[in-house]
């Protein structure tokens, strides 16, 4: 019994926040199934998601204020027990995931009713919450195997969510199946990597692993583990050559699911990748195996250009957004590849900013689909005139995707260019700017379709319902807000980069 905390008796509600964050959506999901009432499902899902977002904000403020939080499940002290370990790096990702879910859910009410078969709607919200709980869990936990478990919780529910697009387009089924195969291979590689790490260190706690690797140095087993984990997580992140599941999954999934996943799923995977690279394996090790400058940076550059160029030639708005996601993931990986604190904060802040931007754009696409029935450019012609509010929100979010000053996208790209210059990598700084110019082209194509073409039903206003416009505008406004008010995001990103670079040691810069 000696390993169990005894002094922790009489914990207050505030102490339980890291757990409740994951537990609330996790328990609300089966609750929806047990109650089984279609009308209540949305309400429960929204309440749970809202609670999660509130908790995430409280945790972020607490972490920025007083440093890392550690929660021991069952009162068992780590490294033996499972631990939730939250510092600035995961707190900001938790906030992103929970708030994207909360903003998108009101949008879901009408969109789901239109796009998903009636008998599946109750289960849809249960799956949504499971996915949310899984994503939050894999970010919050400090236990390597627990990451895998939550990864599977979120992945399995994601496959179901994607397949529910089958009512609109049957190809959702093959897209979900492709994703299932690729995702399972990724998860398998990841768990093989963890197995090697466990063999080499004898522990599953990430902080403990890091300490042991640091002490004993990296041998061949640990290098193998690194390779497996990077490839496995790379599949979930959609690193350029491993991205093939993403375009179809995002295109054929229901609109709300695209908005939710586009803003969160790959982001949680990127966080896990960063956490393993920097905290478990340490930057010195990364430098030694030269995984970043020889593999990560070139792949990120290819993703930035290939993703953007393919996006230009799409004829379907959701597909264009999916390819643009691949390009944007390239920026984040580039930031990681710099292996400097500025680069890492650029990665973290772009992760956050791109999350809200993509959620806004996919919601915009969802609102257009709600009226036109399809996301092909041909059927969206002139909709900017008949749906002025939707169209304008898409334009604002599109500007943030390009990185126009005054939007969130600008802040992260600016930081990325700054990191490149700091390192003296001038060509890469130019490459970031050049690929942003490609983004201008693919965003312009949407603007052209929405505004320059004649609408089919000339003159009549046919705006999306208010329950869709409000979430869309909240997300679009957030891209502008975070383009000006950068204290929270920039401070958190710098603090996150700091804690990632310095490992799990409780070093904390309060205001960045």
């Amino acid at each position, binding site marked *: 019994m000696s390993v169990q905390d005894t002094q922790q008796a009489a*914990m207050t509600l505030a102490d339980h926040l890291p757990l409740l964050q994951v537990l609330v959506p996790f*328990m609300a999901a089966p609750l929806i*199934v047990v109650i089984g009432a279609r009308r209540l499902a949305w309400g429960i899902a929204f309440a749970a998601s809202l609670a999660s977002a509130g908790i995430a904000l409280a945790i972020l403020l607490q972490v920025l204020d007083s440093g890392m939080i550690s*929660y021991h*499940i*069952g*009162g068992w002290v780590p490294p033996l027990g499972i631990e939730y370990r939250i510092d600035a790096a995961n707190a900001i990702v938790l906030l992103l995931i929970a708030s994207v879910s909360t903003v998108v859910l009101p949008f879901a009410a009408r969109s789901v009713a239109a796009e998903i078969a009636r008998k599946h709607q109750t289960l849809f919200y249960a799956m949504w919450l499971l996915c949310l709980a899984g994503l939050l869990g894999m970010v919050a936990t400090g236990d390597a195997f627990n990451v895998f478990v939550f990864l599977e919780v979120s992945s399995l529910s994601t496959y179901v969510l994607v397949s529910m697009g089958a009512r609109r387009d049957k190809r959702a089924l093959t897209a979900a199946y492709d994703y299932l195969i690729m995702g399972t291979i990724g998860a398998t590689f990841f768990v093989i990597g963890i197995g090697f790490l466990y063999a080499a260190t004898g522990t599953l706690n990430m902080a403990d692993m890091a300490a042991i690797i640091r002490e004993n140095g990296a041998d061949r087993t640990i290098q193998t583990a690194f390779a497996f984990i990077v490839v496995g997580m790379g599949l979930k992140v959609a690193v350029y050559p491993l991205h093939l599941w993403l375009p179809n999954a995002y295109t054929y999934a229901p609109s709300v699911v695209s908005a939710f996943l586009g803003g969160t799923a790959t982001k949680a995977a990127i966080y896990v990748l960063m956490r393993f690279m920097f905290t478990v394996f340490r930057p010195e090790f990364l430098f030694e195996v030269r995984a970043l400058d020889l593999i990560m940076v070139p792949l990120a550059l290819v993703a930035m250009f290939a993703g953007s160029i393919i996006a230009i030639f799409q004829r379907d708005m959701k597909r264009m957004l999916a390819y643009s996601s691949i390009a944007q993931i390239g920026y984040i990986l580039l930031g990681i590849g710099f292996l400097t604190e500025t680069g890492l904060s650029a990665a973290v802040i772009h992760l956050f900013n791109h999350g809200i931007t993509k959620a806004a754009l996919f919601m915009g696409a969802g609102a257009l689909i709600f009226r036109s029935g399809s996301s092909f450019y041909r059927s969206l012609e002139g909709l900017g005139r008949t749906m002025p509010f939707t169209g304008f929100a898409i334009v604002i979010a599109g500007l943030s995707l390009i990185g126009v000053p005054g939007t969130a996208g600008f802040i992260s790209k600016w930081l990325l260019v700054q990191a490149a210059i700091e390192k003296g990598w001038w060509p890469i700084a130019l490459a970031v700017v050049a690929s942003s110019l490609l983004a201008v082209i693919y965003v312009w194509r949407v603007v052209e379709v929405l505004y320059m073409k004649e609408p089919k039903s000339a003159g009549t206003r046919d705006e999306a319902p208010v329950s869709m416009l409000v979430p869309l505008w909240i997300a679009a406004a957030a891209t502008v807000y975070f383009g000006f008010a950068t204290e929270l995001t920039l401070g958190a990103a710098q603090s996150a980069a700091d804690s990632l670079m310095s490992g799990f040691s409780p070093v904390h810069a309060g205001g960045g």
Partner: protein
Amino acid sequence: MRHHLILRVITKLLAGAIMLFAFYVQFHGDYSPGGGFQAGVILAVAFVLYGLVFGLPAVQAVLPPWVVHKMMALGVLVYAGTGVISLFTGYAFLDYTALNPAHPEHGQELGILWVEGGVGITVTGVMVAIYYAFAGRPPRISDEEW
């Protein structure tokens, strides 16, 4: 299946015994190998066997699909709910000491029992649901119908 007299009689005899054994594994899991997972699978086997011999409609009359769906979710709620009890009494999530602070060992035994109960319900539900899903698939189109 009407003419398979031996199969039908043996199945009826066995179904009860299998269920009893499932509960034995469930509740004896504290002292011998076993617990919720194994017990859940064994309990589901009773229904699967009944379904194999008497057909899907017969077994779904005993255990309707909607009940199976609720079972899957209910077990998870039982498991997580056990953990939530410890939250309310000021302990960490799933710290079973909370169930009986004066005698931590008793509390832990009780906690394991409830949690395993939840696991058993969910596993039974999932196994039966998988069987229903496979058995309920419409038969493939025969060659004549092409």
